[in-house]
């Protein structure tokens, strides 16, 4: 190794393959699809890294992981040290290794990727986090000198967990408030088990708790306590990371029929409430024969793949644009296809039809064609006159994105929102219009990714530290 290090490293164009459950097996269970690297595979993949002097990959990481450093430790099979290195800046590596869109972030900037496939940074991050957890070698960082000031963090999703762990590591007292009965936010109610096992989320939350964060579940801020009340009761700063929350519907006739669900409802039933295990778990979920999922983001793919696993015969993905414009990760689109999803592209629902008992029986759609680019830069879909047709379905899942949940903002006088109800913040500091109150994640940006929420959490933690140290 040492001798090789001096020479110019040769580019190995292909990634080390990661084993996964074959499609025909995995559609019958909710277990994770990719199976992870072995120690040897991880080390082999890590050796593809060129250890660039000015690593571009790290600049593509919203939480600024020192990527070449941890990869070099993996290459040397110093896995415990690699884990420590990652956790210097990322408290949720097992999550990020699985659900980050690496292809548009770190891996997109990888120099190896210019000649071949980029280094599998995400898979290596996942391997290191899993290795540490499975070996039971999770090592808490050194205890900081405690500070007297306390911070309230509202929402235990990716943004909240990041802020909480960053601040507790600096020595602040941190209380994390979660409205649901389980911590993790979208990581537990939104992302399915087969993409992000819940015991892994729990382990990461346990780690954050072990740092000294006080966690309060079943605490809906906005009604149980308000932000002003928290500030009166000894919290000198507050971070709002409550997610976007509200479900969107199309506002077409028939949406209130039985059998029409928001993706939030469908996935919350399955993921948070474990309805796929009904009746062992009490929350029910309908096992439908023909399901249409409307939308084409990651949430739509998660809904499609959940419906397939619940035993549907046919699952359609209905999208008004073409595959090229789909917002989902390519990996998720491919997996949905492998698992048998039927894509109905350039198709838009216009009406939902039900029977005399009030249940969905079919959906009327219209064909679309792509016109001139719109504000998003994507070609605008335009309906083709007279092209209406009917799809027979017994369930429809609306995966159209989310909107801002007004519960907390309504109870926080002086909090400035934009016209869509999202909280307005300073881009650099995540500061809101109220002194000492910060916000980040989907409640600021609208539906985005886990890692962007974590990036905002990191920025906010720094700004809160500065504010509480009296440096602003």
């Amino acid at each position, binding site marked *: 190794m040492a001798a090789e290090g001096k020479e110019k490293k040769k580019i190995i164009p292909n990634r080390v393959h990661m084993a996964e459950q074959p499609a025909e097996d995995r559609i019958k269970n909710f277990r994770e699809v990719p199976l992870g690297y072995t120690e040897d595979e991880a080390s082999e993949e890590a050796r593809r890294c060129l250890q660039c002097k000015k690593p571009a990959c790290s600049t593509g990481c919203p939480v600024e992981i020192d990527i070449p450093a941890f990869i070099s430790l993996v290459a040397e099979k110093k896995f415990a040290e690699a884990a420590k290195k990652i956790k210097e800046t990322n408290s949720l590596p097992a999550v990020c290794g699985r659900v980050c869109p690496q292809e548009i972030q770190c891996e997109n900037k990888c120099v190896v990727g210019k000649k071949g496939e980029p280094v599998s940074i995400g898979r290596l991050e996942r391997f290191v986090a899993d290795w540490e957890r499975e070996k039971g070698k999770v090592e808490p960082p050194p205890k900081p000198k405690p500070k007297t000031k306390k911070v309230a963090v509202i929402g235990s999703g990716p943004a909240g967990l990041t802020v909480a762990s960053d601040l507790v590591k600096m020595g602040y007292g941190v209380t994390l408030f979660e*409205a649901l009965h389980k911590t993790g936010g979208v990581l537990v109610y939104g992302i399915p088990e087969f993409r992000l096992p819940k015991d892994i989320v729990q382990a990461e939350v346990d780690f954050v708790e072990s740092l000294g964060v006080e966690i309060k579940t079943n605490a809906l801020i906005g009604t149980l*306590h308000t932000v002003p009340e928290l500030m009166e009761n000894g919290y000198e700063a507050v971070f709002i990371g409550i997610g976007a*929350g509200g479900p969107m519907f199309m506002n077409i006739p028939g949406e209130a029929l039985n059998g029409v669900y928001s993706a939030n409802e469908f996935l919350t*039933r399955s993921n948070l*409430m474990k309805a796929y295990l009904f009746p062992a778990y009490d929350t029910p979920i309908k096992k439908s024969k023909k399901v249409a999922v409307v939308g084409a983001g990651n949430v739509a793919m998660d809904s499609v793949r959940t419906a397939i696993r619940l035993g549907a015969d046919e699952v359609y993905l209905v999208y008004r644009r073409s595959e090229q414009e789909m917002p989902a990760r390519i990996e998720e689109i491919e997996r949905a296809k492998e698992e048998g999803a039927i894509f109905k592209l350039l198709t838009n629902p216009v009406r939902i039809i039900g029977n005399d008992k009030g249940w969905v029986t079919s959906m009327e759609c219209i064909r679309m064609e792509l016109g001139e680019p719109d504000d998003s830069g994507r070609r605008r879909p335009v309906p083709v006159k007279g092209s209406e047709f009917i799809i027979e379905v017994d369930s429809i899942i609306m995966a159209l994105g989310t909107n801002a949940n*007004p519960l907390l903002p309504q109870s926080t006088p002086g909090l400035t929102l934009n016209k869509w109800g999202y909280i307005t913040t300073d881009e650099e500091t995540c500061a809101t219009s109220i002194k000492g109150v910060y916000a980040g994640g989907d409640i600021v940006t609208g539906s985005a990714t886990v890692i962007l929420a974590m990036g905002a959490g990191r920025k906010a933690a720094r700004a809160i530290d500065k504010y509480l140290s009296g440096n602003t």
Partner: protein
Amino acid sequence: MFKVIERQKLASTITLLKLRSPEIAKKVRPGQFVIIRLHEEGERIPLTVNDFDREGGSITIVFQEVGKTTKLLGRLNVGDAVADLVGPLGRHTEIEKFGKVICIGGGVGTAVIYPVTRALYQAGNEVTGIVGARSKDLLTFVKEMEAVTQRLIVTTDDGSMGRHGLVTDPLKEMLQGGEKIDRVIAIGPAVMMKFVCKTTEPYKVKTIVSLNPIMLDATGMCGVCRVLVDGETKFGCVDGPEFDGHKVDFDLLINRLQQYLAEEKISLAAIEG
């Protein structure tokens, strides 16, 4: 965990539990509800709060044992606990001096309209109560209602107590008799609330109802509790649970309440076998 500190069997299928929760007790107001989850495998069910003790740090719920969760809840004893209790949820009842008010409770809904009635009474309204149930055995909170109304009318479907008939009968007579009524508030089964609204509508008496759609997170996230009010989609959990009854599409609500009947039977069979 939230401990049961008092339990009363009010009727063969109706139970009252007092749960320790100082934080909720401090904040809850009449008309609001809580979510309860019994244990790790449990479902989240909404229950409107019957009463609260701000100093003592407890809230009281009254429920009819109909499904698996309410049956198991009914089996809890003092000292037992529920895993999760979330609240207060929803908007509270608008309490003002309206003038002449009629508070109507149907079945276990009487337990829920009780704190609303008390608040309206304390706000200086002239309150008439109408409470009804299928039979005497299912009537609860009659004495308590008597104490917070100027006049209380009891009805039973089978005539075993009070007037033989439905809660809408005395209501109709009052309206037909030309009594000036400023507001009606009705809480009970969806069908009852629907017919209360039908009764008051021709007389244009503002009628508030507390809807009971299926809920999941109950924080505005999932949309399963959507109801049509004045042609607009509203969420029962955050926009409600109380709405102007003349604008509610009750048939849609009743239909949406049927969604999981088959699954409820499966769950119930598992504990009754």
